[in-house]
C-alpha cells in the first residue's frame, strides 16, 4: 500500500455512519487512483450517496479515516472540500436558474475574479477547456440539462478540482448528450483529474470506468478492475442474488383498437394521431423535450388542449381534466414521482387511496377500514416494502414509491395505463418487478403507453414503438425487427434537419 501512496488520490478506510435507526455505512473502505474513472454501483439504499455526502462534508463520519491527496481529513464542510479540490455534482443540479452561466460558475467569488468581466472571461476559458462554447451571458434557465451539467463541471474545474464526484449524471441525459459527457469525462481523465462516477446504468460503467466498486446495504461488496467483472456478476453483487434476465419475455396479446387519438395540435405538438390496441405495450421514443410527455398529458387532460379527438372503443370521449380521464379508464403514472406523483409527507395508505376516494366514500364520509383494506391489497399484490400502510411514503425507496403510484392506479381498473419514465432512478430489482407488472396488465387485456429515455427498456418491453421528434411522430417500428440505430435515427430526424438548417444559415 505504502509504495502506491502517490497514485492514490482518495483513500477511505473503515468509515461508518449511522442515522437513527439505520446503519447507512458499515466499515466502508475504498481507494481511488489518480487520473481514473472509478465507478460506484449499487441499489437504492446501498449507501453510495451517503458516502459521497461524507466526502463532500454534508454529513460527518462517525468513525474511520479519509485521506484525500495525502491529507487526513477529520471533518470538513462543503466549501472546505471544494477548496481542497473535491467537487461533487449532484443529480439535481445546484445552479441558480435566474443567473447567467458565468455568474453561476464563480458564484460568490466575483471579487476574486476581478469583477464581472473577469468572471465571464474565465468562465469562457473553462468551458472551452471542456469543449463547450455556451455563451457565458446566457441565463441558466435557458440551458438544456446537459448544458447545465457542463456548467457544473466547469464550476468544479474552477476550484482546481482533483477529484470530481458525479452522482447519476446521466439520468436525465439523452443518448447524444451522454456522448458529450463521455467525451468530457475522458478529457478530464487525460488532465489527471480523478472521477467517481455513480450510476444505475451499467452500460456506462463498462464503457468508461476502469475500476468499479459495488455497494449493498451500507457495505462495500467488491472493488474490481472493470475487465475482471461481467455484467451478470455485477448485478448479482448489487442485488445479492442472481438475476437471470433484465427484462421479462415480451407479452404478445395485441387485439383490436382500444383508443384512437386524432390530431393533437398545440404550440409544441403537431398533428399527433395514433392508435392503441388492446393488450398492447406502445413505446414512445424520443429525446427529453421532444414532446413525449406533452402528448400523454394532453390525452390525460393535464394540459389544456383543444381541437383534438380521442376515441375509446370507437366512441368519442371528452377529456378536459384528469378526472374525465380517470372516468374514461385512463391512468397516468407521471414522470416525476416526487413532484407530480406522490404527496410525500402523507402515508402509503392515503397515497394509494387518493385516486379512489369515491370508492371508499359513503354519503360524503370516508370509510377508513375500506381505505386500509384497499391499501393493504396493493401493498401485498405489488410487493411494496413498507413497515405498514401508515408509514409515510417519503421514507420508502424509489422503487417502492413508484409502486405506490402504480397501485393507486391499478385500483381504478384502468383500461389504458400511461407510464412516463416508470423506472427512472429505481434499482435493477424493482425495475424488473415493474416490467413484470406491465406484462401482467397487458396480458389481462389492458393497454400501456410506455415512455422511457432508456432505449433498451422500450425495445425489450414494447410491441410497437413510435418515434417522436420535435413534437411530431416521425416513425413507427416493430421493436422485434427494427434495430436501435434505425429507431434512434428517426427519433433524431427533425433535430438533425434543424441543425443542418442552422449550419446552412
Amino acid at each position: 500500500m505504502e509504495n502506491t501512496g502517490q497514485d492514490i488520490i482518495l483513500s477511505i478506510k473503515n468509515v461508518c455512519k449511522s442515522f437513527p435507526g439505520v446503519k447507512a455505512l458499515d466499515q466502508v473502505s475504498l481507494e481511488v487512483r489518480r487520473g481514473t474513472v472509478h465507478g460506484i454501483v449499487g441499489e437504492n439504499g446501498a449507501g453510495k450517496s451517503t458516502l459521497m455526502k461524507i466526502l463532500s462534508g454534508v454529513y460527518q463520519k462517525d468513525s474511520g479515516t479519509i485521506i484525500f491527496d495525502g491529507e487526513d481529513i477529520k471533518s470538513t464542510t462543503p466549501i472546505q472540500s471544494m477548496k481542497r479540490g473535491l467537487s461533487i455534482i449532484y443529480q439535481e443540479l445546484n445552479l441558480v436558474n435566474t443567473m447567467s452561466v458565468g455568474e453561476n460558475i464563480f458564484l460568490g467569488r466575483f471579487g476574486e475574479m476581478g469583477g464581472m468581466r473577469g468572471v465571464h472571461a474565465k468562465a469562457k476559458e473553462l468551458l472551452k477547456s471542456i469543449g463547450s462554447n455556451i455563451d457565458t451571458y446566457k441565463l441558466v434557465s435557458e440551458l438544456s440539462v446537459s448544458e447545465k451539467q457542463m456548467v457544473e463541471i466547469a464550476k468544479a474545474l474552477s476550484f482546481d478540482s482533483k477529484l470530481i464526484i458525479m452522482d447519476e449524471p446521466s439520468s436525465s441525459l439523452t443518448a447524444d448528450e451522454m456522448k458529450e459527457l463521455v467525451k468530457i469525462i475522458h478529457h478530464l481523465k487525460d488532465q489527471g483529474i480523478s472521477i467517481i462516477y455513480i450510476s444505475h446504468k451499467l452500460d456506462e460503467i463498462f464503457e468508461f470506468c476502469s475500476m468499479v466498486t459495488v455497494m449493498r446495504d451500507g457495505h462495500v461488496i467488491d472493488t474490481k478492475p472493470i475487465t475482471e467483472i461481467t455484467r451478470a456478476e455485477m448485478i448479482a453483487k448489487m442485488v445479492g442474488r442472481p438475476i437471470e434476465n433484465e427484462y421479462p419475455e415480451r407479452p404478445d396479446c395485441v387485439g383490436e383498437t382500444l383508443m384512437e387519438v386524432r390530431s393533437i395540435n398545440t404550440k409544441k405538438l403537431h398533428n399527433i394521431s395514433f392508435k392503441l390496441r388492446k393488450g398492447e405495450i406502445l413505446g414512445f421514443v424520443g429525446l427529453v423535450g421532444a414532446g413525449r410527455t406533452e402528448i400523454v398529458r394532453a390525452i390525460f387532460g393535464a394540459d389544456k388542449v383543444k381541437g383534438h379527438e380521442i376515441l375509446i372503443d370507437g366512441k368519442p370521449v371528452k377529456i378536459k381534466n384528469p378526472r374525465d380521464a380517470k372516468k374514461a379508464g385512463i391512468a397516468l403514472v407521471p414522470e416525476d414521482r416526487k413532484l407530480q406523483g406522490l404527496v410525500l409527507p402523507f402515508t402509503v395508505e392515503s397515497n394509494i387511496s387518493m385516486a379512489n376516494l369515491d370508492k371508499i366514500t359513503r354519503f360524503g364520509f370516508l370509510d377508513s377500514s375500506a381505505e386500509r383494506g384497499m391499501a393493504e391489497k396493493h401493498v401485498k399484490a405489488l410487493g411494496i416494502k413498507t413497515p405498514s400502510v401508515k408509514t409515510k411514503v417519503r421514507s420508502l425507496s424509489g422503487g417502492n414509491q413508484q409502486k405506490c403510484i402504480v397501485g393507486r392506479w391499478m385500483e381504478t381498473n384502468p383500461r389504458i395505463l400511461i407510464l412516463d419514465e416508470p423506472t427512472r432512478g429505481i434499482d435493477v430489482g424493482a425495475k424488473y418487478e415493474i416490467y413484470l407488472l406491465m406484462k401482467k396488465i397487458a396480458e389481462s387485456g389492458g393497454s400501456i403507453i410506455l415512455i422511457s429515455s432508456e432505449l433498451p427498456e422500450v425495445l425489450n418491453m414494447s410491441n410497437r414503438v413510435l418515434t417522436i421528434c420535435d413534437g411530431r411522430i416521425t416513425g413507427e417500428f416493430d421493436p422485434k425487427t427494427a434495430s436501435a440505430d434505425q429507431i434512434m435515427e428517426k427519433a433524431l430526424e427533425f433535430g438533425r434537419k434543424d441543425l443542418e438548417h442552422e449550419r446552412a444559415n
Partner: protein
Amino acid sequence: MAERIWNMKEQINFKNVIQTVFRDYLVLAAIALLVIITSIVEPKFLTTGNMTNIMRQFGPLIMVALGMTFVIIGGFIDLSVSGILSLVAVVTISLIEPLGQVGALIVGICLGTFCGYLNSVLILASGAMKQAEALFITYGMSTVYGALALIYSGGRTKQMSLVKANTSIYKTIGTGTVGILSVSFIMFLVCLLLLYIFQNKTYMGRTIYLTGGNKTAAELAGIHIRRSITLIYTISGLMTALGAIVLFSRVTAASPVIGKGYETNAILAVVVGGTTLIGGNGSVLRTVLGTTLVILLSNCLNLLGVSVYMQYMMKGAILVLAIWLDSRKQL
C-alpha cells in the same frame, strides 16, 4: 440519490416524532406556565369574572382561527378575514331593526360566506396557485371589504338596537351561560366537533389535505383541487361571519374597523398551534391550543399591566418563533 433521501427521511421521521411531541407539549407547557405565573403574581387572574372574560374573548377569535386552519391546511392563506369580520358586523347589526333578529343573522352569515367564496373565485380566476399570490389577493380583498364596511356605516360605530323582546339571540350569544359555560363557548364546541369530523372523516376534508400536500399530484390523481380551494375560502368566510356575530354580540356595538388585527391573531393561533404554513398538515384541535395560548397571553399581560405596544411586540416575536420552529420541522 435515493438512498440519501431514505437516510435523511429516517432521520426526519425520528426527529418528527420528538418534535411533534415536544411542540405539542410546548404549547401546553407554555399555557400551564402562563397560568401558574400569572395566578401567583396576580390573584385576580383566577377569579370567575376573569375566567368568563377569557371565555368571551376566546369566542370570536377561535371561530376565525378554525376557518383559517382549513385555508392553511389547503396550502393557502386568508388575510381578508379582518375585512369580512368588520363588514359582517356592521351590516348584521344594522339589519336587526329592519329585518328582525333571525333575518339579520341569516343575511350576516350569508354575506360572510359569500365574501369567502368571492375570494376563491378571484384566486381561481387569476390562476394564483401559490400561497404568496393568495396572500396578496386576500390582502387586497380585505381592504375592499373593510372599505365597504366604512362606506356602509358612514364610518360610525353602530350600536346594537335594544330589541324590544325579552329574548334576544344576540344577548344570549353575548352574555348567556349554560351552567358554567358561556353560550359562545358552546357554539365553539359545536363548531369544533363538526369541523373535526369534516377534517378527519369526510371526502372533502381529505381533498383539502391532499391539495395542501401536493397540488400537482392531487390534480393528476383526479382530485378536484379547484373545488378544495373554493371550499377552504368559503369555510373561512362562514367561520369569520360567525366570529363577527359572536364579537358584536359581546360588545353590543360594531365599529367598521372592529375586525382589525384578527387576521394576524388567527394566523398566529393556527401556526402557534402547530399547523404548518406549507400546507397538508395540521388540525383544528391544534388551533384550539394555539388560540388558547394567544388569548391567555394577552389576558395575562393585561392583568400584569404590560403596555399594549409591548404586547404587539411579544405577539410578533411569538409568530416568528412559531414559524422558525415550523421550518425547523421541515428540514
